């Protein structure tokens, strides 16, 4: 008997748009010798002392559950870390939860604050999961499109335009994936005024905080008046090169955390114990290695921004993360056509900008989480690809003449 599974599926789940990256991944994965600038994670392996600590934890038999919010010892380290690095104070006992990746922190935040129909402003281009996470929690994602003209920074005016009485929160991500854009203290303060005026919350995804290059990173929670309105999300993936560990954390006012912890206890129980032990070591003894990785990214960023501009792919200098977001409008192609052609002809993988929202059309995301040698080869290939595009455009024009 054949079953019509459609009838069983949830309309919310069915309605989710598949990630624009997926299609591209399948194509790139089927090819050999690809240089990938399409990777959203560090090229460094987790520092050895952190790995060793987790191995020891496993050997010593740390295999049972921890408290729902995570090991108190780890939460204490997180609390000290947030204070030391970003000057924000959270009580380890009742203001911090260790989650399975920062993505789960986001999920937890939205499930905790959204009622059906509540609107969340999402600044695009944005990380692929944001709209889906809001939708799954019953909310309505409202896209706010930024543009290259002001370095993909959102302005208070743009926010004012879309705020309604249903708006509950703004989701901020600085430094940003995919644009690398960082918002400085003044820019955050301007946004804070809007938040205050409309009595909103801010979910602040600060996962790239450690990877800030030109000025000190400012946590949204440190802006005067915003601590009470901020759900701060961070984790170990990017700065500490621990993506595969799936460890993130959420810090917020106690009144919000106490509700989150209920959801967390029913869905997840706790993050893996032995990995939490590794994270303790990460926060205690790896600042030198984190700094060393940051230096590498900084040098690569400088290199790739100049190379792309020399090739003619106009590109602003992003203040953080490990992405650049150059314009490919000069090629006359769409983002997807450009990326596909580049992959097929020169075996360089990048992610088409429209995967991160409509305002990403005309751009590509290049990750510089790869060695400078590889970046150099990739830039040569992209240069050659651009030349061939210009050449074929010229011959086409001559034919028309």
């Amino acid at each position, binding site marked *: 008997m054949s079953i019509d599974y459609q009838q069983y599926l949830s309309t919310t789940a069915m309605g989710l748009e598949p990630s624009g*990256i997926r299609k591209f991944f399948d194509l790139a*994965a089927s090819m050999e010798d690809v240089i990938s600038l399409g*990777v959203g994670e560090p090229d460094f*392996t987790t520092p050895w002392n952190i790995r060793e600590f987790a191995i020891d934890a496993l050997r010593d038999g740390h295999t049972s559950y921890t408290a729902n919010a995570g090991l108190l010892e780890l939460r204490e380290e997180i609390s000290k870390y947030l204070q030391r690095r970003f000057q924000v104070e959270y009580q380890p006992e009742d203001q911090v939860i260790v989650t399975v990746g920062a993505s789960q922190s986001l999920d937890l935040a939205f499930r905790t604050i959204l009622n059906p129909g509540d609107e969340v402003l999402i600044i695009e281009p944005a990380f692929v999961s944001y709209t889906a996470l809001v939708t799954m929690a019953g909310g309505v994602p409202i896209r706010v499109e930024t543009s290259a003209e002001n370095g993909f920074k959102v302005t208070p005016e743009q926010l004012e335009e879309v705020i309604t009485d249903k708006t509950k929160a703004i989701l901020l991500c600085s430094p940003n994936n995919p644009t690398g854009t960082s918002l400085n203290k003044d820019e955050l303060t301007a946004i804070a005024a809007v938040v205050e005026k409309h009595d909103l919350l801010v979910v602040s995804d600060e996962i790239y905080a450690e990877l800030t290059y030109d000025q000190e990173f400012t946590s949204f929670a440190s802006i005067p008046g915003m601590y009470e309105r901020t759900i701060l999300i961070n984790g170990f993936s990017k700065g500490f090169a621990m993506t595969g560990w799936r460890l993130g954390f959420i810090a917020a006012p106690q009144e919000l955390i106490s509700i989150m912890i209920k959801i967390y206890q029913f869905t997840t129980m706790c993050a893996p114990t032995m990995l939490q032990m590794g994270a303790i070591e990460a926060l205690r003894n790896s600042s030198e290695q984190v700094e060393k990785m940051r230096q590498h990214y900084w040098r690569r960023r400088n*290199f790739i921004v100049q190379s792309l501009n020399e090739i003619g792919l106009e590109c602003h200098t992003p203040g953080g993360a490990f992405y650049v977001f150059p314009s490919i409008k000069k090629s006359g192609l769409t983002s997807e056509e450009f990326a596909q052609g580049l992959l097929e002809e020169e075996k360089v*993988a990048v992610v088409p900008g429209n995967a991160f929202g409509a305002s990403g059309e005309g751009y590509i995301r290049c990750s510089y989480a790869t060695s*400078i040698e590889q970046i*150099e080869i990739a830039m040569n290939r992209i240069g050659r690809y651009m030349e061939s595009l210009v050449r074929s455009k010229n011959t086409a024009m001559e034919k028309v003449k």
Partner: protein
Amino acid sequence: MKLTNQELNILAILDENHSVSPKSIAMQLETTEENVNKLIKKLEEEKIIVSYPTLINWNKIEGKETIVAMIDVKVTPQRGVGFNEVAEQIYRYPEVSSLYLMSGTYDLSVTIEGKSMKDIALFVSNKLATIENVVSTTSHFMLKKYKHDGVIMEGNEDKDRRMVVSP
């Protein structure tokens, strides 16, 4: 001597790969090629950059395998010149690839490279041990090089295990 941040950054890049072009260094550090060339020249003159050796794994090449021995040498220091004179006599031999003055139970650590164990044994008995003021030698033959000057010779540590595209 104190160096600027830019000079330290140049050293960090060259320390990893000395064949990086001045143009690439300039782009990485947001400066001009001219400035990079000038600073490198200065660092060379100051003997902060001493040389640019290439790390070659000779043992992967047939017929080019080398044997390395580290030899602990005890020496009677001499009045006025200490260990320097003996050291000089030792490091002049081309077979000696490195020489360090050590604290502890012996004085000089000598690294010798040769084509065979016999080569090295002959060098130690005929040359090294006969130098005046050398009291004793203890030879240790190196069996395998795992890591040299911060570089892992073979291994999986640097293998890229990431998916080719990810969000």
